[in-house]
């Protein structure tokens, strides 16, 4: 696992530094292994992560962002400005840190909804109008994010 | 193609002025922070665009990566500070 992390960091170094003589690549290898060596072992709260579900998740999220992007643009360009901003208390069955991070990030990334406060099992979301919150309320986000981390494991 | 890039560059610069208006006028301090975030996001795009125009993307990419990271640190620091202090100075 840690070798995999060091390898990923090394790849990132190669992409960013884009110069392939021996000196640069050796520096990259040393720095990558130093970072992995110095940082604490393992990601603490992510036990299982399904790469297949992540591959499915990203295009879905992008289509969601485009759809609500056009919706929000229509709201803003409307001369009457038909917005009804308000807070929504969103109960969720997700509670581990990794799931909450992905869920909150996805909600904020989608135009029309922003995560304000995060607590395990509960999110305070600000929505631009009722239609933007509709999707969140139906719980598709929770299902998708829950599938990313496969089954919830109790970490206690 | 270069003309097209130049037009895009001009439009983005004009848009930055809109955000600058928000920074100057913004009723609360958080409006100003949001305006600054918008400006820095556009600056990232602008840097890559300038690099493409001058055909030196490899150089400008590094600058914009650094800009994005510094923007994150700065914005988080400001948000954290304002959260502790509240909207108006005591």
């Amino acid at each position, binding site marked *: 696992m840690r070798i995999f992390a060091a390898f990923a960091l090394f790849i*990132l170094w190669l*992409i960013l530094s*884009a110069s392939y003589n021996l000196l640069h690549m050796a520096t990259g290898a040393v720095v990558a292994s130093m970072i992995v060596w110095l940082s604490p072992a393992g990601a603490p709260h992510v036990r299982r992560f399904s790469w297949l579900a992540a591959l499915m998740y990203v295009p879905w999220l992008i289509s969601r*962002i485009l759809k609500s*992007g056009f919706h*929000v*643009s229509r709201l*803003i*360009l409307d001369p*009457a*400005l038909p*917005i009804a*901003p*308000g*807070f929504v208390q969103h109960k969720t069955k997700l509670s581990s840190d990794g799931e909450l991070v992905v869920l*909150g*990030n996805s909600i*904020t*990334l*989608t*135009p029309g909804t*922003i*995560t*304000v*406060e995060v607590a395990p099992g509960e999110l305070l979301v600000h929505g*631009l109008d009722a239609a933007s919150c509709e999707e969140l309320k139906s719980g598709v986000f929770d299902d998708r994010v829950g599938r990313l981390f496969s089954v919830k494991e109790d970490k206690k | *193609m270069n003309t*097209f890039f130049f037009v*895009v560059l001009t*439009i*983005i610069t004009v*848009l930055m002025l809109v955000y600058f*208006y*928000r920074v100057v006028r913004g009723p*609360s301090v*958080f*409006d100003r922070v*949001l305006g600054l*975030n*918008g400006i820095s*996001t*556009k600056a*990232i*795009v602008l840097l*890559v665009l300038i690099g493409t125009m001058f055909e030196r*993307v*490899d150089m400008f990419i590094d600058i*914009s*990566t650094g800009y*994005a*990271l510094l*923007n*994150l640190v700065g*914005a*988080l620091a400001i*948000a*954290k500070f*304002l*959260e502790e202090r509240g*909207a108006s100075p005591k």
Partner: protein
Amino acid sequence: MTWLAIFLIVLGLFFLVVGSIGMLRLPDVFSRAHALSLTDSLGAVLVLAGLAVYEGFTMNFLRIFVVLLLVYLLNPVISHATIRAAYRSGLRPTEEEKK
């Protein structure tokens, strides 16, 4: 390939313009953050994607992609932090706006 790039850039520019208009028109901080997330997660990213496509599939494509990924991952964090600070310091949205 060039036409795809132009299409992506123009689409992104549309969202950038709309986001700026929203920044001017919307009534309070919380709503303005929505305009900002429109410019960030659609406008800037689409323009960057267009530039990456214009660059072709070289090393620079990957590097623009890394910047794009950074924008995508970090901007929600920034706007969440700002909005949470606004919320915690007692700011509330104006309710009596036009419905």
